[in-house]
């Protein structure tokens, strides 16, 4: 059985090349079939591993004189299932989304796009299954490359290419850190060049330094602040099915890497835990604050990915602290909440990107200030966006709440017995998490209202209609999962316990939580029943009374017109911007009224925000380097005589240096 699946797996990978030769009208369906086959094969492995809660090792291909094995343990199984689900919804969604590009792109361009989408899926799966360091780094690179080509799909736009290059460079900086880390461990210990080799290093060395290298390498992919600056650019530039998959699962590969490395560290965990927690809290708070000031819906969602990576990191950080301080309940519920949030975030974030993409295909703008009132034209899309928004805010009875709840309960339950240091950390964490939750609500009430509610702000909204079935079907699939996890979280606890088993053997705290989760399901049920009762009561009451329609109450101002006077995204964000002006860095472009201006002329008002971290860490240093490089560029005169002169000077220099025995 397994050997047959391995062969099938190899065949599917090889068949990806066939995408270049199949006729154009079969391109999409061939890709779909290959994705489905990949998902089917790997899901069987993953489910088997989870059910047996053991490890599997299968011979894959000959590699550098030995056999490269596919290794599947509960941790990778979990990620495999998440990757498969989101990739499948992504490819289904792509059918509708790519419709409008079919006449712009030729056959080869489309084939190249599908090929890369397939290879993003393959590479993510292999990243999760390979433990050999060299093979891992190679497949990691393929993942970066395929996603790079996906990001620059609309390569006719100059801006997109620029963003793509930025993404590619940052991914390679990350790769360098990963390579350094692996090589360092290898050189120091001489153990095998793989993840298992790290265990040898960590057993005999202080783990923090090497962990830091890995954290930077993987953190660039995951988008922890301050390593995030590629993310808010790449997601908006990519087509929506790509942003959904990239934000939903690809950035989680960074988290996977961090978790995989953490698996092998068993001592001096406290520093690491506090480090992860600090970075994560900062990512959560800054990510959501930056999201509030964005006008581009996909950029806004990208910043929310940073926020959610922060929440995942808070869970993992607390889990590590729990291990270090020997508080099992914190360890289990921290890791449990963090890992469940990986699944949850992959669901609601892809849902949000798909619905935002649906709005984009209909209105051709991502600027929310130009939208409004779309719920009447695209009711299903609007309701799915609302579902995603409620889930990402962590509101019950949806899935985001369950993972945040696990983290909260872990924290509150360990307060009483923990040390002073741990209590202080916990105080900061739960207040941070509460603020992040509140800000997420602030942000999503804004973005949902501005896009879908009120009335249209510009004519771009006019032609919008509901999108087709292929763009709605993934939403139904994801929506079902969101509601399922939200209402019956209990069924996910056994697999979750198996996954956490790789970090701590004492998972009793998770099982103790099962009655609690049952009561949450009950409370959610009661909540729905109460809504139903009140709804029936109102229906009965309104049948007896007259229900009328009328204009919105304009507060006694006869000229009130929602199209002109409704709130905008800028005005909604304004009171928060005033509180955090330094952090979110919003610049207003507006000339104040002069005192002598009795009849003010029409004025122009604009706001811009820029990412402080990107400015300080990326733009300013690279600009400095550029000014130096420009000075050096004087030598590049373009005259052959000058270049010959340089060669002569160089030869003379070499001669003199050797003559005086300097080299």
């Amino acid at each position: 059985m397994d050997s047959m699946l391995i062969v099938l797996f190899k065949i599917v990978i090889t068949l990806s090349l066939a995408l270049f030769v199949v006729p154009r009208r079969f391109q999409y369906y061939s890709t779909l079939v290959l994705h489905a086959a990949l998902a089917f094969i790997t899901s069987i492995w993953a489910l088997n591993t989870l059910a047996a809660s053991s490890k599997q090792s299968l011979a894959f291909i000959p590699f550098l004189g030995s056999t490269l094995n596919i290794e599947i343990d509960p941790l990778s199984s979990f990620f495999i299932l998440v990757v498969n689900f989101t990739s499948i919804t992504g490819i289904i969604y792509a059918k509708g989304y790519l419709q409008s590009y079919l006449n712009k792109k030729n056959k080869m361009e489309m084939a190249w796009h599908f090929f890369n989408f397939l290879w993003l899926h393959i590479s993510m799966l292999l990243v999760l299954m390979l433990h050999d360091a060299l093979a891992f780094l190679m497949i990691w690179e393929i993942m970066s490359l395929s996603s790079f080509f996906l990001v620059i799909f609309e390569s006719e736009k100059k801006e997109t290419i620029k963003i793509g290059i930025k993404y590619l460079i940052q991914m390679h900086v990350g790769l360098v850190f990963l390579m350094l880390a692996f090589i360092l461990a290898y050189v120091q210990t001489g153990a095998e060049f793989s993840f298992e080799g790290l265990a040898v290093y960590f057993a005999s060395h202080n783990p923090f330094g090497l962990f830091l290298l890995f954290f930077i390498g993987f953190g660039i992919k995951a988008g922890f602040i301050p390593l995030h600056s590629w993310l808010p650019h790449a997601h908006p530039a990519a087509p929506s099915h790509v942003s959904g998959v990239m934000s939903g699962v690809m950035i989680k590969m960074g988290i996977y890497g961090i978790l995989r490395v953490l698996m092998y560290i068993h001592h001096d965990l406290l520093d690491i835990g506090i480090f992860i927690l600090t970075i994560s809290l900062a990512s959560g708070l800054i990510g959501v604050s930056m999201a509030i000031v964005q006008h581009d819906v996909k950029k806004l969602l990208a910043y929310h990915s940073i926020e959610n990576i922060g929440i995942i990191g808070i869970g993992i950080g607390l889990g590590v602290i729990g291990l270090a301080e020997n508080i099992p309940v914190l360890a289990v519920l921290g890791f449990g909440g963090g890992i469940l949030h990986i699944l949850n975030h992959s669901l609601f974030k892809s849902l949000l990107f798909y619905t935002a993409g649906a709005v984009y295909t209909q209105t051709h703008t991502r600027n929310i200030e130009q939208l409004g009132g779309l719920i009447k034209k695209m009711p299903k899309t609007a309701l799915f966006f609302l579902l995603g928004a409620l889930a990402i805010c962590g509101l019950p009875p949806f899935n985001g709440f369950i993972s945040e709840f696990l983290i909260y309960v872990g924290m509150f339950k360990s307060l009483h017995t923990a040390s002073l240091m741990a209590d202080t950390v916990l105080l900061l964490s739960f207040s941070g998490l509460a603020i992040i939750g509140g800000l997420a609500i602030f942000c999503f009430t804004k973005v949902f209202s501005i896009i879908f509610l009120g009335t249209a702000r510009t004519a771009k909204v006019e032609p919008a209609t509901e999108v087709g079935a292929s763009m709605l079907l993934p939403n139904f699939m994801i929506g079902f999962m969101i509601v399922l996890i939200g209402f019956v979280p209990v069924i996910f606890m056994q697999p979750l316990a198996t996954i956490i088993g790789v970090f701590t053997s004492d998972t009793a705290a998770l099982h103790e939580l099962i009655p609690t989760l049952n009561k949450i399901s009950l409370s959610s049920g009661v909540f729905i029943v109460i809504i139903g009762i009140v709804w029936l009561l109102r229906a009965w009451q309104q049948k007896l009374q007259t229900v009328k329609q009328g204009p919105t109450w304009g507060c006694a101002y006869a000229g009130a017109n929602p199209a002109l006077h409704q709130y905008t995204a800028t005005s909604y964000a304004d009171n928060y911007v005033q509180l955090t002006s330094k952090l979110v860095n919003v610049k207003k472009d507006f000339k104040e009224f002069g005192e002598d201006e009795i009849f003010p002329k029409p004025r122009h008002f604009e706001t811009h925000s820029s990412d402080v971290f990107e400015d300080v860490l990326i733009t300013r240093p690279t600009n400095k380097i550029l000014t130096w490089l420009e000075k050096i560029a004087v030598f590049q005169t373009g005259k052959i005589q000058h270049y010959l002169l340089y060669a002569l000077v160089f030869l003379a220099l070499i001669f003199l240096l050797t003559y005086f025995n300097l080299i």
Partner: protein
Amino acid sequence: MISLLLILIAAVFFIGIVIKVKAKIAARKMPSVLQPVYDVIRLFRKGAIYSTTTSILFRVAPLIYFATIATAMLFIPVGSQKSILSFQGDFVFFAYLLAFGKFMMIVAAMDTGSGFEGMGANREALYSMLVEPAFFILMGSQALFTGYVSFQDLFFHLHLSSQLSYIIGLASIYVFVYIAMVENSRMPVDDPKTHLELTMVHEVMVLDNSGFDLALIHIGTWLKFSIYGTLISGFVIQNSWSWYWQVATFFGIMAAFAAAVGLLEAFRARNKMEKNPQWILMLSAIAVVIFLTVLIITQKIILN
């Protein structure tokens, strides 16, 4: 079941006492204590007008808002009377459920396309975001103190015996009173009786709600006050007391809380709008002081 009944009874009279106190201080003729109930009954007899700008969301929002509060009420114990639903971490569920209700009301206000309602919605979103940490730090302090993580167990095991622990009780009550004021959009964050829409928060959000929906929103406010009042009473009522003594204290505290709200609203002016965030964050600061006090009591911080 009894706790639910007590909370409901208190809810019916709460706003009545508030307006009575306010009228007395303003030397007006006092309305009946049941006046808010009559108002709501009148609303139930009325039809409704829905704005043509609004969508289905505007119609379901009041229902969800009411249901969140009604469900949240089930978690609250009164004295040694058990709550209907109780589980570990139920106060997290409680806080996030109320946030869900607020989310829907904010979205509904934005749905009308009115600039005024947008402004109110926006302020409500900011203030309720800012007050959230205070609640969590306060509950965290109680969890740290008692080692329990549900409303029922927390209050059941909360024995304030030493002098320092009285500080916790008093400070917690202070913070809870003001959390209740912020959550219900009352003084000093918001003035429910203001006449200018530009200075409103909650009142302006519900300008377009009428009839049944408006009645639900009003009842929601009563229930919220009653819920927070019950939580405040939890810091005073001890389990060792006999049941009639507990019930008497419960209603005494409710009446005192309502009177305090009335006094506060009669004598205090509303904060300047831009001072509100600072003021609300102060509640979190006090909550942190409570947390530190608990750390001292539990001898994690050792003073000498």
